C-alpha cells in the first residue's frame, strides 16, 4: 500500500471533460443530419457510422484510457483482434445472408 503510484487511476478531470464534450458533439451531428435528411440515405449511413466509430475511439482514449495501461499493451492488441472478429461476424453475416433477399 506504500506504493501509491500503482493504484493511481489514469486520466484527469480535463480528459474526461474533453471526452464528454466531443461525445456530445458526435452525437448531435448524426442526429441532426438524419432528422434533416441532409444527404441521400446511402451517404447518411456512411456519415453516421463514421461518427459512431469516432465516438467509440474517443471513449476508448478519453474515458477508458486505453493508452495509459501498463506495458505491454495486451489490451490494445486484444481490442484490435476483437475488431477484426467483429467485422467478420457483422459484415460476414450480412454478406452471406444477402442470398435471402435474392431468393425471396
Amino acid at each position: 500500500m506504500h506504493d501509491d503510484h500503482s493504484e493511481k487511476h489514469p486520466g484527469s478531470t480535463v480528459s474526461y471533460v474533453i471526452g464528454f464534450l466531443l461525445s456530445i458533439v458526435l452525437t448531435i451531428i448524426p442526429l441532426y443530419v438524419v432528422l434533416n435528411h441532409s444527404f441521400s440515405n446511402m451517404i447518411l449511413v456512411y456519415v453516421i457510422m463514421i461518427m459512431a466509430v469516432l465516438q467509440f475511439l474517443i471513449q476508448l482514449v478519453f474515458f477508458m484510457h486505453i493508452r495509459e495501461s501498463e506495458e505491454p499493451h495486451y489490451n490494445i492488441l486484444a481490442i484490435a483482434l476483437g475488431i477484426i472478429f467483429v467485422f467478420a461476424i457483422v459484415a460476414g453475416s450480412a454478406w452471406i445472408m444477402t442470398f435471402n433477399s435474392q431468393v425471396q
Partner: protein
Amino acid sequence: MAHAVETGVKHEDHESIKIAGFWIFLVQDVLLFATLFATYVVLRNHYAGGPTPKELFDVPGFVAETFILLTSSFTSGLAALQLNKKSVGGLITWLVITGVLGLAFLGFEINEFTNMVQEGATISTSAFLSAFFTLVGTHGAHVTLGLGWMLGLIIQLARRGITPVTSRKVSVLSLYWHFLDAVWIFIFTVVYLIGVM
C-alpha cells in the same frame, strides 16, 4: 501488506492482473454484442407485415436515453477519479449519481418497451422486432447488472474505504460502464438513427 512475500507475482500485481482479465472479458462481450448486431442487420427488414421502425421509434425518447447514458458514463469516470484524491465521500456521491442516471435510462427504456407492446408490437410480431427487443434488451440487462454491481460496491466502499482491492473494483466497474455506453453508441446509430432514416 508490504512484507516481502513471494507469490510468483508480486502482490501489487494481483489487482492489475484482474484488470487485464477484465479487458479480455470486455472483448468477448463486444463479440457477443457483435453477434446480436449481425442478427439485427440481417433481420432488420423482415417486418412480416408488422410495424416498421419509422412507425415505432420515438425520437425524443431514444435521444434522451442516449444523453442520459452518455452523462452517466462521464460521471462514472469522475467517480473513478476520486480514487486519486482518496475521497470516499466524493467517490460514493459520484457513483450514486451514476446509478441514478442508469436507473433513469432504464426507466426510459422500460417505458419505450411497454409503449411498443401496448401498440401491439411484441417480440412475437416479426423477426425484426425479435431482433430489436433482444439486442436492446440485452444491453438493458447489462445496465441492470451493472446497477446491482454498483450497489454492492458502494456498500463495500462505505465499509472499507479505499483499499487496493476496492479501488481496483471501482476501476473495473467504470470500465464496464464506459463499455456499455460505447455499445449504446452503435445501438443509437444502427438501430435508431438508421431506423428513422
